[in-house]
């Protein structure tokens, strides 16, 4: 089959929060968006297709990418946004919880990158954006395993950039400041305030901030921008 004329973007964790916002953002920009999450989504757009997939499930990810490829013949961009967090003191973190974070946040990111890159490399073009967090560089107490998993994503992405660069695929990481989504709704206000007060720009992040960085990374013109990490709010 000949590839779709419109660019195709795969967004993980698309059901709600930032993933949902970004899915709708790129639908409005003319992308065919293929979203996934463990549950159903209610994004209603003829250019959107939802896959009920756990990114840590190798076979399910493979099946999803095969389905996208069969229908569209191309994948132009991937936003690896799916993640889970468990905000606990390390002394109160069960191994099961730690392993699940690594499975979803690290292995899940790797699986989606791997299978999407196999499609991208045939067309010598691709844009991969893997989501990390400022929690890692600011070493926020109470989020050791979550931060560790996201540090792994940054390292993985830097090396991935070198492994895939020859096929025109760029790989970058993006770390948002706290944004009011379900993921942080359980974080005490004083803790959020302390994080925001440590930023250069003292405000919570917004979905639009995320879209701004993603727009830069997925732009065709960003073909020489790879292996980079951008954090919001002045964090480095």
């Amino acid at each position, binding site marked *: 089959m000949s590839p779709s004329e419109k660019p195709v973007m795969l967004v993980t964790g698309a059901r709600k929060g930032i993933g949902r916002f970004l899915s709708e953002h790129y639908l409005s920009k003319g992308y065919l968006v293929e979203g996934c999450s463990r549950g159903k989504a209610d994004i209603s757009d003829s250019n959107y297709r939802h896959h009920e997939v756990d990114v840590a499930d190798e076979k399910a990810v*493979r*099946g999803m990418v*095969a389905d996208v*490829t*069969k229908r569209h013949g191309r994948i132009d961009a991937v936003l690896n946004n799916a993640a889970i967090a468990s905000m606990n003191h390390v002394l109160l973190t069960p191994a099961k919880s730690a392993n699940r974070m690594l499975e979803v946040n690290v292995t899940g990111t790797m699986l989606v990158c791997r299978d999407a890159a*196999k*499609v991208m*490399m*045939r067309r010598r073009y691709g844009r991969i954006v893997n989501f990390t967090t400022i929690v890692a560089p600011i070493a926020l107490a109470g989020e050791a395993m979550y931060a560790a998993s996201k540090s792994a994503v940054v390292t993985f992405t830097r090396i991935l950039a070198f492994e895939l660069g020859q096929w025109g695929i760029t790989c970058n990481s993006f770390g948002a400041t706290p944004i009011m989504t379900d993921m942080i709704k359980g974080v005490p206000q004083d803790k959020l305030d302390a994080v925001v007060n440590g930023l250069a720009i003292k405000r919570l992040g917004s979905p639009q901030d995320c879209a701004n960085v993603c727009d830069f990374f997925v732009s065709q013109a960003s073909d020489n921008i790879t292996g980079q990490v951008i954090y919001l709010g002045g964090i480095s």
Partner: protein
Amino acid sequence: MIARNEAYEIVIASLKEVFEQVGEAPPAQINEETVLVGTDAVLDSLGVVQLIVEVEQRVEGAHSISVTLANDKAMSARNSPFRTVGVLTDHVIATAQEAAS
């Protein structure tokens, strides 16, 4: 189910595609014994990566079977299932059979 001659043709076509992509002429003779991995290999390590991906994509395109050739079994095997064109052909058939079952 993929017939052996179909799998063989996919491997050969993929191998030629890899040479075309890197801008090199393929060896004058490609057959079952053509070495893909190790001493005397016709490809470097990145070429093997490209070949495996190309074969996977072609199997999927032609037979609608999603295969991962570099699976756990393959990567822990004593003898590489990618070492020659013939061995890779057999590995493609076995992996496709497993995926379809």
